[in-house]
């Protein structure tokens, strides 16, 4: 039910409907709890004919899919981007930070890459291993059962390889690699880089009655109309509602504050309706924050408990601190042996069919922590920008640069599908001095104080990016390819993208056993407030060289079952 105002008290009010909010809603509602979800964006269902962008052709868009209003193109399912109209954020000094927000039911799960890597045993106690950052208050063994259940509940492709820090799971069978991925496999292995079938949350095989099976259009970033990829709306919230869960969706509602009573317990969340710009609040016995690491920090910092002024749950002063994103750097190249390709449909699953987990031994390297490799190159659907790099190829092939007419068209036809890219996604070290805070001068159009960011890469990340560049260049060369990306120097951070650019920001409300230097306990409960939980990536003590979503899902499942049990025991 969609509501704006009522006096109903919910068992749980959840802020945010992405991976963390969606999983929380499913687990809590299945256990008979009455749940309200506050979502800042509109309702979204990719199965709805009017909403769906899957299988549309470039010419259906007047801009041929250009990224004018959506950073990843016109058909990308994210309603949002690096900048949202009238919802600003700022950076301080020479900070570069990019913050991707997607305002819609399901949040950023609608467009994400679906690379679904569980953390490994080492990832929960990196400080023990290299003395940097913080250990998690939980071990892999404690969270493993939840990862296993997430695998079976949501579905992820892969193979059991018995790798120490990239653990086995319950995998759906992976699709066969594409042509360029076979070339990559050969060249990467020759460079000592392992290659395995990719671990992606698409259904290559039937999982349950609520979901369809992948039909290989490569368009997971558009959110699948048959629910064959994982999006939180399609795969958690809708099924939970369908199977009788009592979930009320408050869409187009922007949370403003968590309200607390004199005893220091949370009672409600106040919010502004984007439809009528009026203020409301929704009461809950328990409040679950899953608005994304930075939005959750913002919400806490904007909330006030009686007698204190630096934000709710912030007695440690660490809300917003230890913000960290994955490192990211990549190269692209051109592979002449892939010219004049035989045409066939190689769309495949959205994204890569193989991947390389971290293989290095940091004791022998000049940087801590590792990265995994994502890659690709195929005869994909042309979109705005097609042909934009052709002059580079002409130079490389010693053709006359420029030109027009049918000879030019013929050239473009010949080189189609001969591009290849590699990208590293690695672990950065969480630092106290990389953080977000409330901007004393900023407010968005909803009257909510905005964030400003402080973030600097260190040599840990720069040297890791250098290693990526060297590795990728060597592999590309061994594939018979020519690298198109210029070599980057130390001063250019070896090609590291800005923090935030990988959209894996975590750590702003980190969990820990010591309330003096962490925000939540190991179940995501605020140390300072007995009935407020954080079920997004804010609680990550460290990021790992993996994508965060599978861990968000596992933790949200675990935290939510803890909430159910605590409510039963009358502890909350």
């Amino acid at each position: 039910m969609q509501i704006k105002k009522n006096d109903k008290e919910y068992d749980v009010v959840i802020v945010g409907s992405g991976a963390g909010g969606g999983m929380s809603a499913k687990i809590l509602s299945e256990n008979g709890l009455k749940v309200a979800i506050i979502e800042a964006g509109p309702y979204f269902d990719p199965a709805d004919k009017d909403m769906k962008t899957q299988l549309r052709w470039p010419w259906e868009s007047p801009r041929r899919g250009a990224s004018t209003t959506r950073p990843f193109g016109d058909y990308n399912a994210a309603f949002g981007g690096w900048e949202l109209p009238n919802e600003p954020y700022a950076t301080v000094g020479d900070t570069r930070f990019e913050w991707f927000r997607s305002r819609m039911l399901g949040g950023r799960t609608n467009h994400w890459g679906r690379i679904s890597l569980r953390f490994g045993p080492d990832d929960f106690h990196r400080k023990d291993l290299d003395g940097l950052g913080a250990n998690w208050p939980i071990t892999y063994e404690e969270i493993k059962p939840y990862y296993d259940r997430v695998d079976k509940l949501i579905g992820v492709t892969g193979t059991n390889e018995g790798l120490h820090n990239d653990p086995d799971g319950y995998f759906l069978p992976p699709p066969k690699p594409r042509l360029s991925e076979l070339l990559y496999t050969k060249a990467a292995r020759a460079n000592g880089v392992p290659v395995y079938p990719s671990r992606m949350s698409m259904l290559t095989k039937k999982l349950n009655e609520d979901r369809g099976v992948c039909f290989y259009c490569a368009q997971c970033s558009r959110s699948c109309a048959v629910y064959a990829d994982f999006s939180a709306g399609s795969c958690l919230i809708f099924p939970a509602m369908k199977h009788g869960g009592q979930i009320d969706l408050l869409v187009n509602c922007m949370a403003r504050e968590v309200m607390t009573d004199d005893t220091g317990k949370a009672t409600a969340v106040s919010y502004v309706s984007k439809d009528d710009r009026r203020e409301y609040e929704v009461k809950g016995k328990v409040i679950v924050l899953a608005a994304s690491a930075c939005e959750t920090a913002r919400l806490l910092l904007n909330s006030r408990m009686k007698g204190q002024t630096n934000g709710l749950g912030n007695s440690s002063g660490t809300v917003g601190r230890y913000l960290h994103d994955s490192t990211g750097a990549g190269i692209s190249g051109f592979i002449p042996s892939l010219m004049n390709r035989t045409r066939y449909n190689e769309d495949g699953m959205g994204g890569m069919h193989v991947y390389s987990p971290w293989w290095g031994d940091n004791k022998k390297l000049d940087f801590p922590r590792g990265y995994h490799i994502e890659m690709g190159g195929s005869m994909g659907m042309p979109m705005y920008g097609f042909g934009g790099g052709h002059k580079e190829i002409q130079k490389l092939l010693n053709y006359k640069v420029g030109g027009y007419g049918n000879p030019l068209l013929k050239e473009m036809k010949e080189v189609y599908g001969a591009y290849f890219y590699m990208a590293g996604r690695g672990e950065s070290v969480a630092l106290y001095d990389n953080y977000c805070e409330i901007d004393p001068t900023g407010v968005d159009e909803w009257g909510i104080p905005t964030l400003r960011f402080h973030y600097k890469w260190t040599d840990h990340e720069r040297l890791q990016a250098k290693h990526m560049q060297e590795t990728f260049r060597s592999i590309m060369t061994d594939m018979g390819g020519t690298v198109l990306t210029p070599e980057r120097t130390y001063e250019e951070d070896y090609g590291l993208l800005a923090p935030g650019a990988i959209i894996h920001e975590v750590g702003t409300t980190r969990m820990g056993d010591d309330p003096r230097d962490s925000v939540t306990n190991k179940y995501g409960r605020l140390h300072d407030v007995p009935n407020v939980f954080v079920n997004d990536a804010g609680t990550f003590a460290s990021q790992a060289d993996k994508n965060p979503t599978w861990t968000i899902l596992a933790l949200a499942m675990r935290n939510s079952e803890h909430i159910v049990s605590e409510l039963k025991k009358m502890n909350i």
Partner: protein
Amino acid sequence: MDRRKTLKTLLGGAVGTAIFTQTGCRNDDPVPASAVEPENTGYGLRTAWEAEREELLRDQRFFSDFELETIGVLADIIVPAGEDHPKATDTGVVDFIEFMAKDQPTVHQTRLRGGLAWLNAESSKRYDGKAFIEASPEEQIALVDDIAYPEVIEDEPLHPMAPGVRFFDHMRFMVITGFFTSKPGIDYLGYVGNQPNVWDGVPQEVLDKHGLAYDEELLPKYVDQSRRTITAEWDDDGNLIS
């Protein structure tokens, strides 16, 4: 089902019927009907902000008829009709360029309008006061040949043809990208995807051509597409058993 009704049903929490019904499909190819049914108009949900913005753009006009005509002539020089494809103006490229000029004004407007003006000035100088579209096809090509190859300005940024070279470079990009994102352009290119299918690897003849093969050891681990409709089950060790 109309959208409002869909929304109402879903928002009411009573999603009683599976929207992703798989009836009516071949057993070995379970592409749900909903994935291939005819589409509505439009191109997928826009946010209110996007929709308002687009309406505003649609009400505006940037290029004059004279400019649009010039763009059309240039577009057909860049992509003339061939044995297996139509010319650019028959693939919607002019409308696309007009839209992009309004959609990304700082990227396109001055570059294109200024370039067209330069082109007409150059044509007028060379051909007795004739605008580019009034020049003969041979004259047009002679001028285009002087601005179609960036090497002439590589060592000489102030070369008299430099504004023309930079303009043509941008126009070429717009026409090429517009052509290859049109239906005839995609047909010409030979892209055969964007449709439900069952991926079962690279065709054998292509593997042979490139001297590649699938790893025998891995083959049993890849998805068996004949069993894709059978619900996944695992043993306690994580081995798929269905």
